[in-house]
């Protein structure tokens, strides 16, 4: 399956958002996620299935003004 991960095409076999997070090494990381423009809470990641062409955002703290 091809998804758009942080704006770039990405091939994955992850069944849900939690699996994707783990495969990317973010299981214990300070990150937040959104799918197709909507926020998905960490607790909801296992129950959030992924489909072809989904747009996934993974963000972390950064400097800001």
């Amino acid at each position, binding site marked *: 399956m091809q998804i758009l991960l942080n704006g770039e095409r990405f091939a994955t076999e992850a069944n849900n958002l939690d699996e994707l997070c783990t495969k990317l090494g973010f299981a214990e990381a300070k990150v*937040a996620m959104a799918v197709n423009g909507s926020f998905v809470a960490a607790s909801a990641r296992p129950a959030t299935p992924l489909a072809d062409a989904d747009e996934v955002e993974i963000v972390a703290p950064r400097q*800001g003004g």
Partner: protein
Amino acid sequence: MVELYGRSFTSRLLLGTAGYSSPDILRQAVEASGAEIVTVSLRRESARARTGQGFWSLIEELGCHVLPNTAGCHTAKEAIATAQMARELFGTNWIKLEVIANDDTLQPDLFGLVEAATVLTAEGFDVLPYTTEDLSAAERLVAAGCSVLMPWASPIGSARGLINKTALASMRAYFPDTPLVIDAGIGTPSHGSEAMEMGYDAVLLNTAIAKAGDPVKMAEAFAKAIEAGRLAFEAGLIEPRDMASPSTPVAGTPFFKIDHAS
């Protein structure tokens, strides 16, 4: 002391964390500024670089109250989702709400701002909206549940200072009991002092310190200027006038003759 969303702060300087030459300079600048609130953001995280993880450790070390922003969002929908991610990431209901209308001026989209603020306050966020000095938008933001307003002084990063002082004075007079924070466009410590002399409750800035030749020294300069401006406001400024008014008593002036008085 200034109170924002039920929290009291001694410092009236809110400091941005972007654009410093190194994490250590950022740390020193925050300490020198005395800021108790720092703004942060969130950005896409790379599985390789993991940049955000290191930055988070630095923020934790600073021990400041964190104010996440929604910088870069151009629609209410983007800003709402970004705020929701920020709340989970930073563990705070506070959000510096930015909805940008124009990339050249970084002017707030007041319509999108009110729309996003309405949704976010209903979800329990403490919204600090980056807005303009427009009173009708400000009224709608307050009606949406915003207990703090943050009008710009001038465009973000422009260093122009308070370019519409008349409107900002009107805003201060119109909202005497709402905490007002000048956000964006501050270039010099005197700009910060000016805002405080006008009775604004606090100043939020980033670039003027981060990009200064010596950010740590500039942070100290801003801290002193903002404190001085606040003291001046509390002391009560005299009214300006067009003609001179002698400060030395006129009565008893030597060589005084009545002809000179005409």
